[in-house]
């Protein structure tokens, strides 16, 4: 019998987290409903003028996506922390950052992908045209994994701390600002006819950088939380 490699460990973590999410579908669906409701509140609050909605649309949808991602961060590690699975993950022979990548990927599939898939519909609610809707979906596709990456650092830091829900928001939201600026900027520049390539490239750069650095930071934070 061969020992399971890193790839098996990664897939195992992803499969387990997705399976657990599938067994509690309503938990996983909550951030998405939150996104839809928040996005629908703005036209009611600001007023339904199409020109106004088109201007604020990209920013509102990005902020809503960001908050939806934030809401689901608490679930990434808490259950595993409480029942001791996380401790086993730290102890096994596979490197912890690899397992963290698995956790992050599962979180993105649960919380990020539905947001990306729903965004065209919400974009149309805000009167965005075809190209802007496509850019919105693309920017979210590039940006939401970064949100999951950065967010899990915060989630690991506040593990088991009192008032952790609010604290993680205070820690993570400032770090989300660049992603928000580039993401909303991509849609806005596409609406302005300048082309979204520059902002999308910057989003891609954020993704690559966070993919490289965030798992190490999260692993360090988990070790601190568990020692």
């Amino acid at each position, binding site marked *: 019998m061969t020992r399971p490699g890193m790839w098996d460990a990664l897939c195992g973590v992803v499969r387990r987290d997705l399976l657990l999410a599938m067994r509690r579908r309503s938990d996983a669906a909550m951030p998405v409903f939150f996104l839809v409701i928040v996005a629908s509140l703005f036209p009611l609050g600001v007023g339904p003028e199409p020109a106004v909605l088109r201007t604020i649309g990209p920013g509102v949808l990005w902020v809503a996506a960001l908050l939806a991602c934030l809401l689901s961060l608490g679930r990434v590690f808490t259950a595993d922390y409480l029942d001791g699975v996380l401790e086993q993950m730290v102890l096994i022979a596979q490197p912890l950052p690899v397992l963290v990548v698995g956790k992050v990927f599962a979180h993105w599939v649960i919380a990020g992908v539905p947001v990306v898939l729903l965004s065209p519909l919400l974009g149309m609610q805000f009167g965005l045209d075809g190209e802007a809707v496509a850019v919105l979906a693309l920017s979210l596709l590039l940006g939401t994994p970064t949100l999951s990456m950065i967010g899990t*650092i*915060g989630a690991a*830091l*506040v593990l088991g*701390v*009192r*008032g*952790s829900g609010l*604290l993680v928001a*205070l*820690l993570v*939201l*400032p*770090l989300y*600002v*660049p992603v928000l*600026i580039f993401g909303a900027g991509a849609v806005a520049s596409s609406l302005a006819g300048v082309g979204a390539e520059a902002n999308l490239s910057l989003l891609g750069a954020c993704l690559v950088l966070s993919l490289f650095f965030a798992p190490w*930071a999260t692993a*360090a*934070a988990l070790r*601190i*939380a568990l*020692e």
Partner: protein
Amino acid sequence: MGINWLKYSAPQAFYPLAGKLIPWFSIVAALAIAVGLYIGLLVAPTDFQQGESYRIIFVHVPAAWMSMFLYVVMALWAGFGMGLNARLSFMMAQAIAPTGAMFTFLALLTGAMWGKPTWGAWWVWDARLTSELILLFQYAGVMLLRTSIDDLRRADRASGVFALVGVVNVPIIYFSVKWWNTLHQGASVSMTGGSKMAATMLTAMLLMTFGFWMYSMAVILSRSRCVILEREQLLSWNKSASTPEPVEVR
């Protein structure tokens, strides 16, 4: 040289050393700031474009420099603490955070006071201002995370990781005026290209920076003494250090 510097990495050796250094740093800070303010407010010529309102840069620029510098130093101490497992390093990181946050706030406040007469707005959402505001949030995050965790060892390390992650923002602040087309002007002083302003203005600015730096040293050292007393209050050396010397009654 026969001085064993590592000796001062022990809080009980550092405590009296800090106590001896604080008056010196305070005096130098007071002198530098007094002379810097004198040159900046009275000697330096009036700017032909901005008039007298430009003089706030003698507080604004040094405060902004210190806000970034102190963040990096705080993150470095936290990194040392984690790498070398030295408890004094974490105490230094804890002592630096409030002073750094104060300078960040001061930079934002003086910037707003300068922006109103010059730009006609207290605040604009350009890259420099936004990233400096985020720096303030990061200082707040570091301090909040530390106070929210009861276990001291974990609090030190968790806030250290967060401080290290946030270092990404410092080069963004520094280069924001180059990378983006901002309303905030570009750098007038640089390490390589020299200065683009009158010599007296530069002298005043550098004196103020030096003064702020020395002020930070004095305040951080005295705060670190408080932190040491707080954390090590159950250790025996501390009892003799923190209780006042008995007054002789005649």
